[in-house]
């Protein structure tokens, strides 16, 4: 059953179902990460000693990771633009780059965590590390989820491109919204944990 306004926008609201659904999902994610930022605030104001980010964390590595994510956001939006311009080849190039950059992010994260463990810095060591690991861990989990979603559109999902390229373009745009959101969270996460 093809439901109304799945692939074309409803005239009075101006959006497709998927566009609205994606933004609603992102709204819930804002509240999810919001709770963790609220946690950060409460833990920090209640702490007798709160380390400066640079004391315990690797700022240069995280700065590189910030650049990686920002770049991946650009490749993601270029992937969507390629769909809009009906170029499957360029779509796969840019989407592939986006997935690759996501992987780079996670690999760098792995090295960060490994270094912490090596220096016996665990979530249980203090509340700063607890919120650091949890916030970045949940974020990394979202990066991974985004990669899986993007990989689906890069791979098996391309089937839809042949049937209905416009709907496929919409779905890539929605995947892009999720990916940009993940970048956006990091944009706030990075200064909060590493620079303050």
């Amino acid at each position, binding site marked *: 059953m*093809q439901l109304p*306004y799945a692939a074309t926008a409803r005239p009075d609201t101006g959006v497709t179902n998927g566009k609205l*659904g994606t933004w*609603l999902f992102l709204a819930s*994610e804002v*509240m999810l990460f919001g*709770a963790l930022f609220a946690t950060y605030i409460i833990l920090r104001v209640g*702490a007798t000693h709160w380390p400066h980010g640079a004391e315990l964390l690797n700022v240069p590595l995280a700065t590189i990771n910030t650049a990686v994510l920002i770049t991946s956001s650009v490749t993601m939006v270029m992937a969507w633009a390629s769909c809009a311009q009906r170029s499957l080849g360029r779509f796969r190039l840019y989407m592939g780059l986006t997935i690759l950059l996501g992987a780079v992010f996670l690999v760098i994260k792995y090295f960060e965590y490994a270094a912490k463990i090596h220096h016996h810095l665990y979530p*249980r060591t203090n509340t700063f590390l*607890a919120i650091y690991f949890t916030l970045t861990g949940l974020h990394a989990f979202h990066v991974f989820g985004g990669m899986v979603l993007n990989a689906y559109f890069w791979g098996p999902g391309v089937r839809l491109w042949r049937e209905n390229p416009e709907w496929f373009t919409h779905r890539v745009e929605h995947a892009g919204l999720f990916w940009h959101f993940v970048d956006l969270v990091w944009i706030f996460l990075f200064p909060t944990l590493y620079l303050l």
Partner: protein
Amino acid sequence: MAEVRDREVAAARAPALHVPHEEALGFWRKYVFSTDHKVIGIQYAVTGLLFLLFGFSLMMLMRWQLAYPEQPLPWIGRLLGDSRAPGGVMLPEFYNQLGAMHGTIMVFLGVVPLAVGGFGNFVLPLQIGAPDMAFPKVNMASYWCYFLGGVTMFVSFFAPGGAAQAGWTSYPPLAAITPFWGQVLWLVGMVFLITSSLLGSINFITTTIQLRAEGMTFFRLPFFVWAQFVTAFLLLLAFPPLEAAAVLQLMDRIAGTSFFMPSGLVVSGQPLEISGGGSPLLWQHLFWFLAHPEVYVLILPAMGIVAEVIANNTRKPLWGYRTMVYSVVFLGFMSFIVWAHHMFLTGMGTTIAGFFQTTTMIISVPSVIILTALFLSLWGGSIRFTTPMLFALAFLPMFGIGGLTGLPLGLSATDIHLHDTYYVIGHFHYVVAPGTIFALFAGIYHWFPKATGRKMSEFLGKLHFWPSLVFMNMVFFPMLIQGLAGVSRRLYDGGAMYTHAQEVLYWNKIMSFGAWGLAVAQLPFVVNFFRSIRGGEPVSRNPWEATTLEWAAPSPPPHGNFERPPVVYRGPYEYSVPGSAAGYLPQHVAAEH
């Protein structure tokens, strides 16, 4: 003649829906892993009812202990085994498990899945004239997520150390030092349930905005749809912080973090080997940020059902429909900024307490407006005292008591005396039990014919209603009395060890008999429900002569709901319209002339 022409024009404008052959789907895809909102709605409703029964049973065990402290439980005592009830006498730890899981199960596995997952899923697409929900596969996923959460919660009873036993509120540090598996499974179960709710809420909001039929403007929506719409926003935005909090408590349990563990904790004489520096109040903030809007999730669908049943059975429009809509939207907004009235006794200063008292008093206004409008809707009506109407009518004063008893809790000066007493339990049970659950019964009797093509028995319905009303009050009113006398909640002995409680202790036995009586009073309902599925009086599309769109579809509706997408010409409650042939004008029927 013109009427016929109008209908033909309307039919031509609305193309026939492509309905796939149902025979092509096997048993599993049609009834178990279905993406049809009606099947999913029934799955939610049946599972929800089963959990309501289970949660109710847990409470009936508790009421034995409260009526006859330290007496062996007849028959069941032996079955519980030595780890829970040695010699048939319930252990305090087991009593606490019953308490924590009764609350959790009733709220998260019973009422909300039935009210939102069940009624919302089944009725909402039909009432807006849609063929299904906007995201049918997501809908199916949300049910199975709920199911997994329910199984996780159920299984926790059999874990070493038993189920969660730190209250449905799971406050650390207590929740951090109770037996491991019960609490961890509770947290994991909550993650499943919250995910299910989030997926569902995205579906409800998108569907209501995007899939309304032609002519179905927002102010022609039945109040039930508005109530579900606002509820979905509460679920969408208030649940994630609790999901985050559950993850944090899991980290405290599994990774040894101290999100909620303060420094210097000593347990059983031993200082805990943790970093400390955490905040138990942080959990309370994150928990109540959800749990306050959650209580509106519990009541709003109920108000929606009562509105539909009252309009239909008074044969007149709802009084103040627009005002009710503005009220319910305002209520939804306010519900996000009142939560710390659950935390007045945490050492809160007067400024911030003043803020939360103010918002709490303000939020009582839209509630009163909605209840008043529902009462006023009865004035001048031709009331049909059918079973759904009886439950809907009883809802009004019962919710009234529940709401009014909330006022002294919302003001911190009086809350000092009443917080964590039986008064609180009496207050919220009045709202949820003879409040919401009565409304849910009204909904079942009202929409059963639409879902099955058969009516439930009126006689058995009344046999269900009257004793239920009596016993509900017998169980919950004395709680208000005991609470005012100072009897604390969550006491294994029901207050027996406290001198200030002695004068009101006798109510324990009365309440327990009320609870067991209430259980017996549900038997006519169970019999009625199952017998009517095959043996009830067969009905046509619109046995209640109702105006809303779901009654334009066949009973039960096929996959895709409507033969042709309906077109809406008027508001939802055009009853007793002068000059109308049938005495009422359904929303989808073109003008008569």
